[in-house]
């Protein structure tokens, strides 16, 4: 069984909430990303979302944009990312790994994805494809990889149903109108919308995009099956990169994990 599906159903049956941590592959370099992934999972991250750098990441705020730029300077592509994941899998063969990125890079590397050597990758999230479309129609598919679609506060009801039914990994509820790293969470709206999604989805619904504080994390975990944290982690990675000091990140993850448990 796919690691992501297995993990999410275990979390659910234990009545717990999933914690997803995001970082950009190759920021600041591939070796450090592998170390950070180990730190993520040992501190309490259940699922790791790996950002695939792209020159034009239109859904990202400044923090993650800069991380994409740093990685691109190191010539990171899906080829090096698959190699990186292979290395990581020598240490950890249980944590689900999700690739998150933009359609163009995935189309370009569809062969790599189709091969998915040793089933190292578990899921793909493409930011710029309408959620009711199937990635396989663009040649992006693999037997053991499922897909994650986004639903936002502006998604209309008829499409919520189509997208929810089309998501095979989990549904990613974008908690605000904005790019990654923004603020302004409207908890009431979020609750209503996630309830609506859950009526249609056979997979769990996780929430992400504007989560910064422990308080945000708690509120959102209460009304979803789990949360995704991106910009806060990427910012700490940026700040710690020079001296390779990442202790804060482990502590932060542990705290969040405790708050949502």
């Amino acid at each position, binding site marked *: 069984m796919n690691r992501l599906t297995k993990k999410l159903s275990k979390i659910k049956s234990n009545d717990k909430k999933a914690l997803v941590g995001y970082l950009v592959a190759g920021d600041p370099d591939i070796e450090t990303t592998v170390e950070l992934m180990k730190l993520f999972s040992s501190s309490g991250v259940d699922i790791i979302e790996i950002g695939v750098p792209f020159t034009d990441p239109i859904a990202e705020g400044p923090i993650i944009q800069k991380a994409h730029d740093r990685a691109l300077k190191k010539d990171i592509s899906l080829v090096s990312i698959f190699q990186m994941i292979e290395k990581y899998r020598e240490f950890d063969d249980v944590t689900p790994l999700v690739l998150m990125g933009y359609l163009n890079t995935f189309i370009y*590397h569809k062969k790599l994805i189709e091969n998915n050597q040793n089933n190292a990758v578990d899921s793909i999230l493409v930011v710029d494809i309408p959620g009711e479309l199937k990635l396989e129609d663009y040649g992006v598919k693999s037997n053991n990889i499922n897909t994650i679609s986004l639903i936002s506060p*502006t998604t209309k009801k008829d499409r919520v149903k189509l997208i929810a039914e089309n998501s095979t990994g989990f549904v990613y509820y974008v908690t605000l*109108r*904005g790019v990654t790293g923004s603020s302004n969470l409207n908890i009431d709206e979020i609750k209503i919308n996630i309830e609506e999604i859950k009526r249609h989805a056979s997979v769990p619904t996780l929430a992400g995009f504007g989560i910064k504080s422990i308080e945000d994390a708690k509120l959102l975990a209460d009304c979803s099956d789990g949360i995704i944290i991106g910009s806060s982690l990427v910012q700490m990675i940026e700040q710690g990169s020079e001296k390779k000091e990442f202790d804060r990140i482990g502590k932060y993850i542990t705290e969040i994990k405790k708050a949502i448990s």
Partner: protein
Amino acid sequence: MESNNNLPDKNGFFGEYGGKFVPETLMYALEELENTYNKLKDNNEFKKQFYKDLSEFVGRPSPLYFAERLTKHYGSGSIWLKREDLNHTGAHKINNTIGQILLAKYMGKKRIIAETGAGQHGVATATVAARLGLECHIYMGAEDVQRQSLNVYRIKLLGAQVHSVDSGSATLKDALNEALRDWVTNVDDTYYIIGSVTGPHPYPMIVRDFNSVVGEELIEQSKESFNTMPDAIVACVGGGSNAMGAFYPFININQTRLIGVEAAGNGLQTGEHAAPLNDGSPGVLHGALSYLMQDEAGQVKATKSVSAGLDYPGVGPEHSWLKDSGRAEYVAVDDDEALEAFHQVSELEGIIPALETAHAFAYLETLMKEFDDQSNIIVNVSGRGDKDINTVAEIDGIKI
């Protein structure tokens, strides 16, 4: 605003090109825009207002002018100029903004945003926003802010705010990224006036339709001026809006060759250019699948052109379709050729063209050899060159 083929299809595709590849938050906004446009485009009141504004505010129709000395210079067919440079604000860009601001008004949007490269679309947007008293924000790459400083000041004079974009290559594509991010954030009260036939559906269709007034006028003016349809229409292609507006009404008129001229920058063979139709491959950028300049990892390549308005790695999806179907031809001229044409047209015709437009003129050097005396060739003069004076002076080593 007539329909000459049934494209795009209901999902926004021209053959395999186009579509709506955007973050989910924008899907509803695009649907809302499409519904509004479909409701209004055949509405008589709306059409009346659009053509009234084009006539009284823009000064349409723009003339079709016989370029006597240029014609003599080449010594073959007759060269005619479609004078979009005479429009209010100095380029074809205003045709589109006049139409889109009416959509924004109808939709009750309070805030207008746009991206701009050469600054012409920024000026055209700030102009129509000022006219309706709407808040207006223009995104412009930091490099373009510098090389098109005159237009930056014009935009500010018109009461709009200019946001200089530092990310990526700091040119048009990055300005578009930033405008999309603004739209994702402020989607409820903001209307995004995209400046070319690019971006997600329904923009390529809407921008084409509003610019098609150029081609529609050309059909009438050709009959009046030379009693038949032209043998060729030549237009520069950045995103492709001036070309698409001129080409579209001619798609079923087979005697007219449609020729788009891209920017070859330092030369096609150097790879340093902005000519995706000549030297690119299909890919997804800014919401559409179209020809794109990309590397072997699917990353978008940096572009190079002396002309800010052509300095873009993508192109409107309908041009990709016209290329593959063979109905239009796409060629490229480099910076040096464009600069030479810039001077030549200024001296021979008393018209200083925009650097973008100079690319279309430069191709006459090759094209006119293919025609005889009886032929009629139209160049779409997409804009005037006032904005480029500083750039050209600097290249010529002159301090103003």
